[in-house]
């Protein structure tokens, strides 16, 4: 098959930094092509160049062998190149059908609603999914919104569909459905570019895999000829396989947190567990198993209605985050943008925010040198990569933002650290560093709760694993005994296990 889209020797730089240098990629119809690389490898720039948001400085883009130049997304769309992202872009107040046909403007006629809805239903059926075209997009789940986006692309006769980390926020069975959609697109002759940090997905889905590093093309091989270890080695340029190995437990056996029969009506119930100083307890389960709600209840953001909590033997009732902090609890949220960091503010100010009292003297006067000194210490300790400590946090890469968030909460000197999805959407090098930081904290005697949907991460970090399903704890493993299969089995349906 001749390629439908070809990128030849594409280079693009921003302010002297080369994001892409001499990158080539060829997309064939009816194939799923996976693209992997660490954060900052240039994947986003590549996508933006393919969809006309950026224009390459040198190199050619060819559609059906003819050189083209995309001046904007409209040009790319006309050539049949479209992209969907982790966060679907839909109009929340419009219906499914309206969202799908939003780019089809027919100014002369009135809208024939029943025909529009039928056509939308047919479009969705082509993806092997059922979805009522009359529903408002706001009512849909994230996965369903993605389906709408894909249907919109198909309605525009997409020939190359780029899927940028589409599975990052989906639950396991939603990912399966997404795979089904990707395969049916492939069978209909669409060239799919699939980007994901979850390497295991690539083996399940892709035909070909391209590895990129530092804006350069490293390799393109049939997926049958690569292994996870070989891909990781190529992504990072060094052998990282061993870094995810387990380490001996730092559990002191001394109970710090004792939760019994915690419940919140309609959300979770019968939640009882303990965490020791120096112990890492992981909450595993599907997205929507209400793990985050338990964490937020312990931090006082959405307090529980029933049950009791003891910290170091003292019964406590936690009603707000300020109080939780004063009890020595810190919570690193999974939602960096909404709850974690103020992206427009500087690194130092974000780090010191929960502890402003520590830095202020008479009349609340801030000791800025003291703030800077502490931030500098964290920059060194956590290896935060930034030009300086006053740049807005939003300009950092995901991994570095995650480290700033960790610094912010470590600065509160917590006794209990709750970390929700500590490494989601960050690259493999940063991931290993975050794991190292968490282990070091446990060694210092901090009790750690990790909520993670990343099973390899859970298996390598946890001293104990609690599996949640539908608002209840349905099982417990020690870190040594657990396997992917045993945990996943319990998370999906405990009765069968």
């Amino acid at each position, binding site marked *: 098959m001749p390629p439908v889209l070809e990128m030849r020797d594409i280079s693009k730089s921003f302010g002297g930094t080369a994001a892409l240098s001499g990158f080539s990629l060829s997309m064939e119809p009816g194939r799923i092509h996976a693209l992997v690389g660490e954060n900052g490898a240039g994947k986003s720039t590549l996508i933006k160049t393919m969809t006309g948001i950026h224009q390459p400085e040198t190199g050619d883009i060819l559609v059906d062998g003819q050189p083209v130049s995309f001046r904007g997304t409209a040009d790319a769309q006309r050539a049949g190149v479209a992209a969907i992202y982790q966060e679907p872009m839909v109009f929340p107040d419009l219906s499914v059908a309206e969202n799908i046909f939003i780019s089809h403007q027919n100014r002369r006629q009135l809208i024939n609603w029943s025909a529009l809805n039928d056509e939308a239903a047919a479009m969705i059926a082509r993806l092997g999914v059922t979805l009522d075209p009359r529903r408002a997009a706001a009512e849909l789940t994230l996965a369903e919104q993605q389906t709408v986006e894909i249907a919109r692309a198909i309605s525009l006769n997409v020939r190359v569909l780029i899927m940028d980390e589409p599975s990052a926020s989906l639950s396991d069975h939603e990912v399966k459905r997404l795979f089904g959609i990707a395969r049916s697109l492939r069978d209909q002759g669409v060239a799919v570019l699939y980007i994901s940090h979850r390497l295991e997905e690539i083996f399940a889905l892709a035909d070909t895999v391209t590895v990129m590093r530092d804006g350069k093309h490293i390799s393109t091989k049939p997926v049958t000829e690569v292994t996870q270890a070989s891909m990781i080695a190529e992504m990072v340029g060094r052998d990282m396989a061993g870094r995810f190995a387990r380490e001996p437990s730092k559990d002191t056996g001394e109970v710090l947190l004792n939760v019994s029969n915690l419940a919140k009506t309609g959300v979770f119930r019968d939640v009882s567990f303990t965490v020791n100083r120096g112990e890492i307890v992981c909450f595993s389960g599907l997205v929507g198993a209400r793990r985050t709600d338990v964490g937020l209840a312990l931090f006082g953001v959405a307090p529980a209605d029933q049950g009791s909590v003891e910290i170091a033997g003292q019964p406590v009732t936690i009603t*707000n985050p*300020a109080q939780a902090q004063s009890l020595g609890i810190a919570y690193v*949220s999974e939602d960096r943008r909404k*709850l974690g960091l103020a*992206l*427009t503010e500087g690194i130092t100010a974000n780090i010191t925010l929960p502890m402003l009292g520590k830095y202020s003297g008479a009349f609340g006067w*801030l000791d800025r040198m003291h703030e800077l000194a502490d931030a500098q210490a964290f920059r060194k300790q956590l290896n935060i990569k930034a030009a300086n400590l006053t740049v807005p946090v939003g300009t950092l890469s995901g991994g570095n933002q995650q480290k700033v968030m960790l610094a912010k909460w470590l600065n509160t000197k917590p006794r209990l650290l709750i970390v929700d999805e500590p490494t989601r959407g960050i690259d493999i090098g940063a991931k290993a560093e975050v794991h190292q930081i968490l282990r070091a904290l446990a060694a210092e005697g901090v009790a750690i709760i990790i909520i993670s949907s990343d099973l390899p991460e859970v298996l390598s970090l946890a001293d104990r694993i609690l599996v949640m399903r539908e608002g209840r704890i349905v099982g417990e493993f020690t870190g040594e005994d657990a396997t992917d299969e045993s945990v996943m089995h319990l998370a999906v349906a405990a009765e069968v296990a």
Partner: protein
Amino acid sequence: MTALRSWEGFLFAVLILIYAVNAWSSPVFLTPGNQINMFQLSVEKIIVALVMTFVIINGEIDLSVASIMGLAACAFGWLVQAEVPGGWAIMIALMIGLACGAFNALFIVGFGIPSLVVTLATMIAFRGFARVLVEDRGINAFPAWFNHLGQKGLIGPVPLAMVVFAVLAVLAYLILQRTAFGRKVYFIGANRAVAEFSGLDVRAVKAKIFIASGVVSALAGILFAARVGAVRGDVAQGFELDIITMVLLGGVSIFGGAGTMSGTILAILIVLALRNGMALQNITGHIQTGVLGILLILSVMVPIIRETGGRLIARVR
């Protein structure tokens, strides 16, 4: 060159340019008498602009400031007419400002109603009270010492209101840029959920700002009464727009979280110097207002132009 890249650097350059043009075109412009006069004509507005900077960086708006100015001024006049001693009348007028601010805070912080809605309503309500108190006839029988405070120099030729502005400007700068309170103002404006999650007392900060806005507005209203020597129901009517304009021109984001006190102060100086310079050239008030409107639009456009310009240059390279 790097100084020019910041918004404050840009404003500073504009200010120097305006001062240079004014000084070149009118020999009167730089004289101390004219400079004081320039400040004195808008001194109440620029005092309120200082506290408005906190309100807007915090992600809120206070449309009721001019009505609080009017209400405090009218209450003062009414009390003086009722033969309440001047000192007491001032205290009571300030307390009314505090009560107005607390009333706004109650609905915004206590009941969670958007500040745009609450202060739009209280803008009308407080103005209504002012008109009920004084109606249309006006009051001008103020004690002589009070009129002197408004019209004569306190330190040399510099009148009280300018001294108040200078002191408040320094205080506002220090509080916003150098204290924990100021830091909280920024973070709450930038991302309220993050601020709450980090354990900040978001509601207390917002309440304090609206109460301060009420008190400072009342103070500005009293200073206005002293300068003009009379009050009427429509005192300071429409001032809120001029005040908000100065703050936005200073680079404060209407969405909250961004801007600086030095930006606001530079914008104040620019507006004053521009108006004064045009007045010295006998340009009418209506045209002056038009020019300021265009200036505001340009100030919003400059960052956008700079960005697209930068992109064009990058493409040419």
